[in-house]
């Protein structure tokens, strides 16, 4: 049995009696790297996060972070956290920011009823799994429709499952599930977007079938999922794909609703930022998956976090 001990590196606590130079909302790669850069610049910085580690923790393996050819999502985040902990950045975890008031000092409200004050804020709240938005999906959520393959995969041992999506997350989920499930059907509405190296691994699996150009139209079953109805876009025919589990891995939606009245967002709900990670509000920056920056990748989010911290530092110097 493997143990996934979460060592919480000792971090000072975040105070609601003090004024910070920079408050970072979010504890994923963007937030942690922003903290690292800000602290090294000498800023008085702290992190408020719902989940320190972010979505990377739900990833079984990470093979595209430069310098770390084979890491688990958990292992990578432990390294990030340990690095930030060395600099003694105050962190408050398990906390949701539900409102930010603009002003000379930004007032950051949390679900714990506290208000934290800072000259600048970086929004790095990441994203959450996107839904298929088809009939039956909501009804069968937790009854066969799943959004975390490493969590729920074991519950489908020996069964037939489906994976929706064609990007890296979907293909990785299908590869992982092929080791547990009897059969895996990958269903994607267009062509693969995943890295070829992963697609090749998937194709080599004997118990996997691949349905490209196939659009899922509804999730069906009685009590539990039994199949999906889909449209084969090449032939125009309706197809029925069977399985008791449907793992939805079709991308992400930004966690930006709490800031809807604060900053400008695009039609996808992503916070609009400049090349220097500035939002339309002076002193409020954003970085990582929550922004309209293209290509959601760990290494890109980390880089954007660094940029946002440097930009916040520049901004503070002009105050």
């Amino acid at each position, binding site marked *: 049995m493997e143990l996934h001990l979460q*060592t919480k590196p000792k971090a000072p606590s975040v105070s609601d009696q003090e004024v910070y130079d920079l408050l970072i909302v979010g504890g994923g790669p963007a937030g942690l790297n922003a903290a690292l850069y800000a602290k090294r610049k000498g800023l008085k910085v702290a992190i408020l996060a719902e989940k320190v580690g972010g979505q990377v923790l739900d990833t079984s393996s990470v093979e595209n972070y430069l310098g770390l050819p084979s890491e688990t999502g958990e292992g990578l985040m432990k390294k990030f956290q340990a690095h930030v902990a060395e600099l003694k950045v105050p962190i408050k975890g398990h906390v949701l920011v539900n409102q930010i008031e603009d002003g000379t000092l930004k007032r950051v409200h949390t679900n*714990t009823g506290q208000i934290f004050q800072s000259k600048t804020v970086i929004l790095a709240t990441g994203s959450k799994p996107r839904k298929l938005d088809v009939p039956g999906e909501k009804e069968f959520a*937790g009854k066969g429709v799943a*959004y*975390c393959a*490493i*969590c729920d995969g074991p519950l489908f041992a020996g069964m037939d499952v489906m994976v929706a999506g064609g990007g890296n997350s979907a293909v990785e989920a299908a590869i992982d599930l092929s080791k547990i499930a009897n059969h895996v059907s990958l269903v994607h509405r267009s062509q693969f977007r995943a890295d070829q190296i992963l697609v090749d691994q998937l194709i080599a699996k004997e118990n996997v079938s691949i349905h490209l150009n196939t659009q899922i139209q509804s999730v069906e079953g009685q009590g539990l999922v039994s199949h999906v109805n889909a449209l084969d876009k090449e032939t125009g025919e309706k197809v029925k794909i069977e399985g008791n589990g449907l793992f939805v891995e079709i991308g992400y939606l930004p966690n930006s609703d709490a800031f809807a009245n604060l900053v400008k967002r695009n039609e996808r709900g992503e916070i609009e930022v400049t090349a220097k990670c500035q939002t339309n509000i002076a002193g409020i920056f954003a970085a990582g998956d929550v922004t309209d920056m293209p290509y959601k990748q760990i290494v890109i989010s980390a880089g954007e976090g660094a940029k946002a911290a440097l930009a916040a530092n520049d901004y503070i110097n002009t105050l």
Partner: protein
Amino acid sequence: MAFLNDEIKKQLEEIFEPMKNEVTVALFATKELCETCEDTKTFMTEMAEVSEKISLDVYDMNEDATLAEEFGVKRVPTIVLLGENRKDFGIQFNGIPGGHEINSFISSVLEVSGAGEELPEVFAERIAKVDKPVDIKVFVTLGCPHCPGAVAKAHKLALENPNIRAQMIEAQTFSELSDQYQVSGVPKIVINDSEELVGNQPLEMFLDAIERL
């Protein structure tokens, strides 16, 4: 088989440092027909060796049936965490708290020992108002990174209010129970067999559900 290597032991010693009161791990097991009882016993023995403040009592589900009933233990292996003077808070782990669940085990041991995190007032007041019996089941798998958060919250609720009981249930060990509750996504939180939540929900969602009962 040993579960804890020297590195983890060292980390655990540090983590358990702040413990205030003694915590008794009461493990209910059987000698036969229990695939994970032996592993759970070994695992808990090793955990108890890490801190002087943790002691382990192993009970036999059949021989100590009266005690099992007293604690409301229904299946094996089950761990009941007892506080100072063996106070029962209604905090249980059904199945081995391995994998990611070592984190909820640690968090609940710290809480029961009196070294837990203080609750924000907004929540403390709502929890204090719960005046009817509440039973929270949290179904988990050991590979689920966000399950320990849900377990820790349920246990915290149990710790704060004697009307609330909370148990982690490892879904694969107790597959029949999981089928009965139609668990195909974890963490799945079932409250008094009537309210259901899926996912590591914030504390206010737990409280909303409890207040709907």
